[in-house]
């Protein structure tokens, strides 16, 4: 049972990541390949604050998300001049930079040795350390993220985002300041990715750079595309399937040396099948041009 709850918690964290990336990639059409970098920054921020300065994880969560949002703005600024593939490469580069910093700034992050013993959240004197209570915490944040991104996209503001995805030049011709909207989207997406990062760190109680590789960013992107670009329910479904499905492989009784690469291969295969048969994703309506 605990194992099942654990899977649900991990799924919830991935849903937050997927929803926030969907805002950037699916709704606004900006090719971003470094999403996990935002989670990484926030995870290290709140962990280090808690470990070194004894700051409450709640404050760490907020500060981490704000720092991630700031990084989102930093990456958003040059991205205003880049389009399509170039933006994808630039954000990919960001992912690598953040990963390398986490790995090599040993005096701060302890590098590959990682940070053990990250304290859990506590509420009114009670530690949120049982899986049940943590599940409730994660689900609360999933709900907040879902509502926030639903509201953002379901509005005149959201319509402008879709316009940027469809035709940037026409959006300008309608008097909309495209750059401003892109920047906001990066900041908001990074903020929620940051929350996911901190939730992960305080749950597992140990982080090291290997949790934040570029491959993780690609996995989250996969979840967005799999569920459907521009579909919030799609993101929930996409993240759930791609987290739960590989776990099922455990019950086939394969040694982990086979199961891990098999997981990657199945991801790849699923994506190929999906792109051929349903390019808009499971629940999406938007197709690539």
């Amino acid at each position, binding site marked *: 049972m605990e194992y099942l709850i654990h899977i649900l918690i991990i799924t919830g964290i991935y849903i937050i990541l997927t929803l926030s990336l969907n805002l950037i990639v699916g709704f606004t059409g900006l090719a971003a390949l470094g999403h996990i970098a935002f989670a990484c920054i926030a995870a290290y921020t709140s962990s280090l604050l808690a470990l070194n300065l004894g700051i409450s994880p709640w404050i760490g969560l907020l500060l981490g998300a704000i720092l991630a949002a700031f990084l989102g703005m930093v990456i958003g600024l040059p991205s205003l001049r880049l389009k399509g593939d170039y933006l994808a490469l630039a954000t990919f580069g960001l992912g690598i930079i953040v990963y390398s910093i986490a790995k090599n700034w040993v005096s701060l992050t302890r590098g590959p040795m990682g940070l053990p013993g990250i304290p859990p959240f506590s509420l009114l004197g009670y530690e949120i350390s049982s899986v049940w209570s943590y599940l409730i915490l994660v689900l609360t944040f999933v709900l907040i993220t879902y509502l*926030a991104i639903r509201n953002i*996209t379901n*509005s005149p503001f*959201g319509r402008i985002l*879709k316009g940027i995805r469809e*035709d940037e030049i*026409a959006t300008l*011709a309608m*008097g909309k300041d495209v750059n401003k909207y892109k920047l906001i989207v990066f900041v908001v997406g990074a903020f929620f990715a940051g929350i996911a990062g901190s939730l992960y760190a305080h749950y597992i109680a140990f982080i090291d750079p290997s949790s934040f590789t570029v491959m993780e960013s690609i996995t989250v992107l996969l979840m967005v595309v799999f569920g459907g670009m521009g579909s919030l329910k799609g993101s929930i479904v996409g993240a759930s399937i791609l987290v739960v499905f590989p776990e099922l492989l455990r019950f086939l009784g394969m040694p982990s040396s086979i199961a891990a690469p098999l997981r990657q291969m199945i991801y790849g295969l699923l994506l190929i099948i999906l792109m051929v048969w349903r390019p808009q994703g499971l629940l999406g309506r938007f197709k690539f041009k």
Partner: protein
Amino acid sequence: MAVLQVQNLVKEFDGIKAVDGIAFGVEKNSICALVGPNGSGKTTVFNLISGYLKPQRGKIFFNGKEITSLSPHKIAKLGIGRTFQNIRLFPQISVLDNVMFGFKYERGDKFFSALFQTRRMKQEEKDNLLKAEGILKFVGLIDKKKELAGNLSHGQRKLLELARILALEPELFLLDEPFAGLFPETKRTMLDLIRKLKERGKTILFIEHDMNLVMSLAEKVIVLNYGKKIAEGEPEEVRNNKEVLNAYLGKK
């Protein structure tokens, strides 16, 4: 008074002068045509006026205010709406939402209005929805409001592009070949629409190749050739201009 005043505009691409010292004015509440052979610089002039290109030299004034090199969204907000030669709609968004796009919002299009779904945003959205339906009735696309814009026919897309800038409520309309590829019937609809815009006090500058249409619609014609203005005046006088005949028919 001239709504639009263009002075000595120069735009070079890699040493080739696409626009070479063009100057003209467009009077308030008039219909003015910009004509010329392919590659004569008409669309470049449009792109310069609407801010998509920046001129090397020259100035552009809109209602007496200089707008040279302002960014496109600022120029659109000031009141210059444009359509595109190769139609730029939002294909995977509904026809109605395409029109909704053009409206200027007081606060409704702000991030926090969206995040907290403010009552004000909802009210503005409701008001604009009614206005958008009115515009779709005006151009005759109300039956298609729920369709995706990408599923419309060429003629309907041209009308929708016009509908979309109507929502922007510009004072000056820049229409880049509004009649290109239209069915005779749709052509008449478009013609009527443009005339109605003038009745509503708007100013129109359009690019067109079909001389019959230009003659029947325009009050003033500006002729470009190789990036230079070779004639300007009333349709009749331009039609008999020797240089214009040379440009269009070749020298005898």
